[in-house]
């Protein structure tokens, strides 16, 4: 049959697949990929700038690489094409590019292969279990684009190096540019180049000629040069981000080499067994190992059958067989080397020679992007295996009589088509164990309710100079209970054009602010002070989330709280979204502050809850006082570093350490929530504070907003300690001795005065009279429930076994920290009623571990009231503002309420730059402006300039290379 038949088959199969996936008219979305196809223009808008004002603002860095991808798709949506059609077209293109790439790669490497055998390579590359899990089920677009371009990359590079044709280098870079989304991941940039370098090494080894080696290096250099020019726009952002302070801060706060190594080792043990890799399988997804819980949905159970194990291992067997049989062919050895190298790398630091992987991993920090080696290097396995398998089938069939060839061929291709392909044809590939994707009729399908569009429109109509905060507020993951719900990373930037805070994540400064927001909402009546600092005009209450699945707070309790919160008024309700306006809000996108208050590193946003802090005061850190003018500083707030907690029978004490640079008079303040809890217990007088081990005998404490001022103390410079000691009573009402028997097999004790923001010391003594074990559980109102079973937070504390030594009571204790969203908690003791037992439990105690927020404050008495200048501003885009200052007399502070980044710059009209740039209000950018009169300032995020230059270079280079390639094509045609 002619090749066109097989190419048409590839098109037909891809069309059938996307029709099956999208015929219901729903977009697909999950995981970190979110739901961009709901509103494509949002990602197009975000990725075109170097800075996004989403959340508290952040640099877009490498995601700018995906800009051309989104702009094209957004254009299609603006033409009126529905999101699901665009997504279907994209998936179709990716399948076609991957399919044709592997088809032509197979034909290029093994020209003798018939087209129908090359089709084996296509089906295997599409449907193998690694692609199923890592590409389609994982559902990340850069995984998909990488999977699609990999075969064509190998083909073009192989062809270029073999035919010694420089034009192929140009084709390669132009081809890559069409799929630049791939480059939004450092791992995939590296993998693509690793593949090219691998080919270069094989060719240099095989050529054994210096002249040819020089040519190959020239070819490689040309590839790098044009790659750099065409991809200049996102390369500027990548290097800018890699050299930025934000990255080093992020790494130092959230990642450690030790932590990454631990992750590598765990993932290698889980996914790096060679027996699983040679079945092209994600062992945990398919539940191949008993040590790890099955991560895939129940339909994967079928893949544990011996027949399917035999089938998948037979394919590896065929690959190894062809390597041995045709070992004299360079192409076979090239793919064989790639296959074995991929196998070696994908197994991570597992034996054999896992230490070599570890050595590189530890000594080259960049290599730590491969801490999940299976997910990255694993994708090279099907790339090398597919053409080898096709060649193996071709060679195998030739061993048989002609009459047997067709049945054997049909058996192989149909086996791949149906066994590996079944999850694709049935749509099960887009399902998971988590709701709502565990419902196979829903899977990753998402239908966003129309009230989100209405809410977005309404917010836009309220202006563009504010952000809003959504409650309940959790971590990155969210589950929406829509008709076809969504489970994945919160997609606030897609659902709303207005900047918002809907989740917490590992971004320096941002995470420290957001982790306290829900607590402060419930702790203080002055929550509007906090929302003002964040320039949040509205609080959005959402009741369409599956809060139990995500261990979040019940939206009903937020609703009750909002109703009781002064200075907030419900202004709109759209579907299951309620908007409450902060009546104290005024635009603080850019504003002027009067005095600075120096705050130590451990400081946090709750400091704004002191009445003594003025509306225009600005907290600063990260810059030396000597760089600022003394007269602009009105005080110092010092947060001591907590060193230990100590608990005994009824007292809780917390030790703090601090180093004072200057001697002086300091006020000692405690956050009121600590006192409130004690006041409720009528034990206020039991608080004891020691400084340098000397008890302080303070006067009656004075309230300062949500803090309580204990009084002043004179302190020398140097190291000091503070100990805050308080009495804590037992918070459970339990009998003196609890007799757990077969007839009374369960006892539950609620924790009184429960607060989710404290930890609890749980203690009890137990004695087995007979029986084998009992269970202790710490049950919280926000425990998630799966299949009717509660998933409790402390499974390791659960089962207490009878060790056979039962002459005396034994003691058990542990510190348990509840979910911050829990509203109640209880201690539960239980045992299996079907087994005969009797267990005595006594001295059941739950004692709060109060970790009071302590601070030392020093005021500068010489401050005078300042006349602040008038200010107005124009926002050009998220990375550029023009500020108009009128009537400045004294030095003042300019605050931009976007996340602090050292690459924000304040520039005057004369070209000079405000050098005193610091972290303001715990998250924002502040500058000390010492200039009088009327003037203008440009606030700009510097990488934007690089991005603008980069875009020009990239567009010009792409066009020049494109025109050159087209010109060459026509010249050749004319000849």
């Amino acid at each position, binding site marked *: 049959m002619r090749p066109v038949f097989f190419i048409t088959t590839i098109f037909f199969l891809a069309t059938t697949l996307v029709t099956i996936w999208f015929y219901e008219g729903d977009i697909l979305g999950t995981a970190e990929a979110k739901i961009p196809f709901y509103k494509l223009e949002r990602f197009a808008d975000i990725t075109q700038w170097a800075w996004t004002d989403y959340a508290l603002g952040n640099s877009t860095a490498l995601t700018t690489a995906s800009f051309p991808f989104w702009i094209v798709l957004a254009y299609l949506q603006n033409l009126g094409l529905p999101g699901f059609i665009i997504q279907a077209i994209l998936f179709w293109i990716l399948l076609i590019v991957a399919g044709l790439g592997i088809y032509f790669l197979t034909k290029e490497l093994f020209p003798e292969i018939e087209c129908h055998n090359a089709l084996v390579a296509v089906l295997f590359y599409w449907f193998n279990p690694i692609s199923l899990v890592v590409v389609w089920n994982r559902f990340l677009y850069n995984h998909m684009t990488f999977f699609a371009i990999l075969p064509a990359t190998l083909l073009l590079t192989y062809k270029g190096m073999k035919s010694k044709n420089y034009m192929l280098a140009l084709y390669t870079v132009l081809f890559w540019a069409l799929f630049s989304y791939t480059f939004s991941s450092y791992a995939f940039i590296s993998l693509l180049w690793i593949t090219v370098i691998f080919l270069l090494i*094989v060719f240099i080894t095989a050529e054994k000629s210096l002249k040819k080696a020089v040519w190959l290096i020239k070819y490689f250099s040309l590839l790098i040069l044009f790659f750099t020019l065409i991809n200049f726009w996102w390369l500027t952002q990548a290097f800018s981000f890699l050299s930025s302070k934000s990255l080093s801060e992020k790494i130092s706060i959230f990642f450690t080499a030790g932590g990454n190594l631990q992750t590598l080792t765990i993932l290698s043990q889980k996914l790096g*067994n060679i027996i699983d890799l040679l079945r092209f399988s994600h062992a945990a997804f398919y539940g191949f*190992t008993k040590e790890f819980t099955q991560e895939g949905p129940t339909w994967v159970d079928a893949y544990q059958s011996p027949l399917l194990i035999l089938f998948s291992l037979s394919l590896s*067997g065929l690959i190894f067989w062809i390597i041995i049989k045709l*070992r004299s062919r360079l192409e076979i050895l090239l793919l*064989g080397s790639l296959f*074995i190298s991929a196998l070696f790398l994908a197994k991570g630091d597992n034996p*054999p020679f896992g230490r070599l992987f570890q050595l590189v991993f530890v000594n080259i920090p960049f290599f730590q992007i491969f801490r999940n080696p299976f997910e990255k290097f694993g994708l090279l396995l099907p790339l090398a295996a597919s053409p080898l398998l096709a060649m193996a089938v071709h060679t195998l069939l030739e061993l048989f009589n002609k009459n047997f060839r067709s049945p054997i061929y049909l058996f192989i291709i149909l086996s791949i088509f149906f066994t590996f392909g079944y999850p694709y044809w049935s749509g099960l590939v887009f399902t998971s164990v988590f709701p709502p994707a565990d419902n196979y009729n829903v899977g990753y399908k998402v239908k966003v309710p129309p009230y989100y569009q209405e809410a977005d429109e309404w917010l836009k109509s309220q202006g563009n100079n504010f952000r809003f905060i959504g409650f309940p507020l959790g971590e990155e993951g969210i589950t929406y209970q829509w008709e076809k719900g969504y489970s994945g990373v919160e997609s606030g930037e897609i659902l709303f054009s207005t900047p918002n805070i809907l989740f917490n994540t590992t971004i320096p400064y941002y995470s420290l602010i957001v982790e306290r927001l829900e607590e402060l909402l419930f702790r203080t009546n002055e929550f509007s002070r906090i929302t003002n600092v964040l320039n949040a005009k509205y609080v959005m209450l959402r009741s369409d989330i599956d809060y139990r699945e995500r261990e979040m707070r019940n939206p009903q309790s937020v609703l009750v709280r909002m109703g009781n919160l002064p200075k907030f008024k419900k202004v709109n309700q759209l579907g299951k979204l309620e908007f409450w306006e902060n009546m104290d809000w005024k635009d603080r996108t850019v504003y002027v502050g009067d005095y600075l208050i120096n705050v130590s590193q451990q400081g946090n946003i709750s400091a704004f809850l002191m009445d003594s802090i003025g509306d225009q005061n600005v907290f600063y850190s990260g810059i030396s006082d000597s760089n600022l003018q003394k007269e602009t500083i009105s005080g110092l707030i010092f947060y001591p570093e907590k060193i230990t907690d100590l608990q005994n029978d009824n007292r809780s004490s917390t030790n703090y350490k601090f180093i004072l640079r200057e001697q002086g008079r300091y006020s000692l303040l405690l956050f009121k929530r600590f006192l409130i809890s004690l006041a409720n217990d009528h034990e206020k007088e039991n608080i004891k504070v020691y400084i340098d081990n000397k008890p302080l005998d303070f006067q009656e404490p004075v309230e300062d907003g949500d803090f309580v001022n204990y009084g002043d103390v004179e302190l020398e410079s140097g190291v000091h300690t503070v100990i805050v000691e308080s009495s804590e009573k037992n918070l459970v009402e339990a009998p003196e001795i609890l007799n757990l028997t077969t007839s009374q097999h369960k006892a539950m004790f609620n924790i009184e005065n429960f607060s989710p923001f404290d930890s609890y010391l749980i203690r009890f003594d137990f004695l087995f009279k007979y029986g084998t074990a009992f269970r202790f559980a710490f049950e919280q109102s926000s425990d998630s429930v799966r299949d009717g079973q509660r998933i409790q937070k402390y499974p390791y504390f659960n089962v207490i076994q009878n060790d056979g030594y039962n002459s005396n009571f034994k003691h058990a204790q542990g510190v348990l920290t509840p979910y911050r969203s829990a509203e109640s908690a209880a201690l539960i003791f239980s045992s299996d009623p079907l087994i005969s037992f009797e267990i005595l439990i006594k001295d059941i105690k739950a004692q709060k571990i109060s970790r009071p927020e302590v601070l030392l404050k020093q005021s500068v008495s010489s401050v005078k009231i300042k006349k602040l200048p008038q200010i107005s501003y124009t926002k050009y885009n998220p990375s550029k503002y023009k500020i108009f200052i009128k009537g400045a007399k004294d030095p003042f502070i300019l605050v931009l309420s976007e996340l602090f980044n050292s690459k924000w710059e304040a520039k005057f009209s004369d070209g000079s730059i405000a050098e005193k740039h610091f972290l303001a209000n715990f998250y924002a950018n502040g500058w000390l402006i010492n200039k009088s009169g009327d003037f203008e300032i440009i606030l700009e995020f510097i990488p934007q300039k690089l991005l603008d230059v980069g875009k020009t270079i990239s567009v010009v280079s792409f066009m020049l290379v494109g025109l050159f390639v087209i010109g060459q094509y026509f010249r050749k045609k004319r000849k």
Partner: protein
Amino acid sequence: MIYYFILAIWIFFSWFLKKRSTFSLYPAFVLFVLAALFVLFGERSLAETFMRLSLVGWLIGIPHALIEVVNKKD
């Protein structure tokens, strides 16, 4: 460490006794087949050990075969 030791012995016999690449490739294949059988019978741990030994063979055998091809070209 055992795998480094096996690697050293394997390389010693394969190179210093001037064996061909099949000296590594055939045992690697046999070890793979044995490991596959162990997987089928549910002996994962034993199967993995055989697969690891097989990998050592492939790691030596395939570069060896590549060198043979290059030398043959000359």
